[in-house]
């Protein structure tokens, strides 16, 4: 147990000590102030994979690591659409997932926002034109924010969330 605490002590706060993150820090603080003002300190996102290759999911996970630590800004990922303010949709919307995505959107309470993340969610990406995909979330629902990239980096995702909050 002592070793565990020692490791935590030795690791320190990577969130603050990384120089390349100064820009992100400013961005995060900006997110936090907007969230405090409009969402009582809490903005809940439900991630929905509509048929992605899993690369976007890996980068969403990265948002929660100690470097980005998105929760410190009041943005958190929730387990149910019923708890969500926004859906973050990845993937080209496979035919087999399309109805499920619509159901998830239906289950999300108003007011709600839709973020399309990754080239696939934007326009089908590498899978555009396939019989098995709708070719982007816009084919079934209107996204409020689009986040291109294959996959978009955690910084880009964070900036997009900020963009959404400014527009709402």
């Amino acid at each position, binding site marked *: 147990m002592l070793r565990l605490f020692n490791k935590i002590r030795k690791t320190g706060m990577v969130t603050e000590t990384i120089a390349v993150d100064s820009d992100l820090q400013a961005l995060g603080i900006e997110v936090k102030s907007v969230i405090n003002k409009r969402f009582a300190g809490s903005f809940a996102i439900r991630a929905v*994979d509509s048929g992605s290759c899993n690369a976007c999911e*890996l980068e969403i996970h990265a948002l929660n690591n100690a470097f980005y630590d998105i929760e410190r800004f009041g943005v958190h990922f929730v387990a149910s659409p019923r708890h969500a303010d926004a859906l973050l949709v990845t993937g080209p919307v*496979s035919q087999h997932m399309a*109805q499920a995505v619509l159901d*998830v959107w239906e289950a999300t309470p108003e007011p709600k926002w839709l973020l399309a993340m990754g080239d696939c969610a934007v326009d089908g990406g590498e*899978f555009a034109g396939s019989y*098995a995909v709708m070719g982007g979330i816009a084919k079934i629902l209107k996204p409020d924010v689009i986040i291109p990239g294959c996959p978009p980096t955690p910084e880009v995702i964070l900036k997009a969330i900020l963009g959404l909050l400014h527009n709402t």
Partner: protein
Amino acid sequence: MSRFDWLSELIARCEEEHILFHGGSARELAPAHVLHIDIEDWGKFAVMAAEQQTRWCAVWAVQQDEETLLMNACFEKQGDYLVIRAPLDIHSPVLPSQAPVFPAANRPERHSQDMFGVMFGNHPDSRRWIRHQAWDEEIFPLRKDIRMAHSDQVAPADTYYPFFQAQGSGVYEIPVGPVHAGIIEPGHFRFQAVGETILNLEERLGYVHKGIEKIAEGRDAEGLAKLAGRISGDTTVAHTWCACMAMERAANVAVPRRGIYLRALLAERERVANHLGDIGAICNDVGFAFANSQFSRLREIWQRTQSVIFKHRLLMDTIVPGGVKVDLSSQQCETLSQQHAVIKTELNELMAILNDHASLEDRLVSAGHLSHELATKLGVVGYLAKASGVDYDLRRDHAYAPYDRMNIDSPCYQQGDVATRLQVRADEIIHSLILMDTLLQQLPDGDIANTWKPPVAICEGLGMVEAWRGEIISYVQFDATGKISRFYARDPSWLNWPALEQLIDGNIVPDFPVCNKSVNGSYSGHDL
């Protein structure tokens, strides 16, 4: 050990059973050996192959002309691959199933059934698998005469899939998915439980089917490499490598030695990245947040280096037909070596803490047990196999360049539980770090890629790569204009998903997430 020393015995046994061979070839799909048989003997051959303790790897069809499908099945023993082929009349596409003797063939055969309309006569479970309700039962997307048009109509959900039912006092059912509570891919799990205890788990996949095999057709080599890199985003390097290997063997394009070494370096980096992330995630699934935060920190450091040196955090599109896209300066080699040392130190430190933690041990030891017998019977691969006493690693047993010149140390344990699978992953990280140091030290000078020359005649090739999840097999066929006419990629998840249904038996429902994570099958890689 000489290569293929088991093959003559298998052939002799088949001949005793009156299985007719119409020629064989070591060149047709080299390095695999090809045997041509009659379609009537498809099932009988499987019985012989099982008797000789081969491992079932894959089945795929290739449409040769308007009348004929060429059926392919792949087997492995001692690192040598055997492909059997038989023509099948497209107008009466019935053949014997191999699933009665090889459970691994069950779902892949149903994939062929849904996509090509071939019928496996004595299949133990012929329910639809990849097909949901997006296209009609009578439509077979991969047949050449079927033009699968894109549609903007939303397909109905596959509500009436006939799941296995369990009835009795106290038995209840838990449907989970396709949208899961975590940030993970979609799939459906149907549990039958009594109290906390899982009586039965049935998986239903296919939700992220994107028609990859169909949209591969007509692409050039570069286009296929890009698509292969998106079969499963966490395995982008290995899938691209495997597809490129198949294309290069088909078109007879050599890769410069420096390019080969860099490919291996990228593949090992991908292995380390995923293992780091998953060790943390497994611990997180039993509420040990410390490990998750530490391991995701290491993963992030790892990915940031990739972003700087290889221009992509997940290494997408770094491998191209004929070689690789990104070269390393000697200074970058030095940076990478230093990072290997840092990660090794941190990993050892963290594993000592994890192994010392009694409450972690309490949750991970004996959870999700997969016996050696079951692992062999199901033909699982990768860390799942290595944790259950199945000692197979392509890098050592089917040594492809550059691994053929290296000492490959692959872990193997007998316990077969979640804790052991975690240990295998930690061991593999250490081995990969050592391997990467060797690759950097021995990195040959020269070009990193040769120019891709599109083939001018119909040709085909087979690739096999040890991805971080285990063996990938890719088949590629070019038409006479240098365009892809058939692509099939068998992700390791095809072989490992069925094991989850088995190893969860008798565990409690709250242990499902950690058991699932310890297997970590790919949904996208499976659904294609």
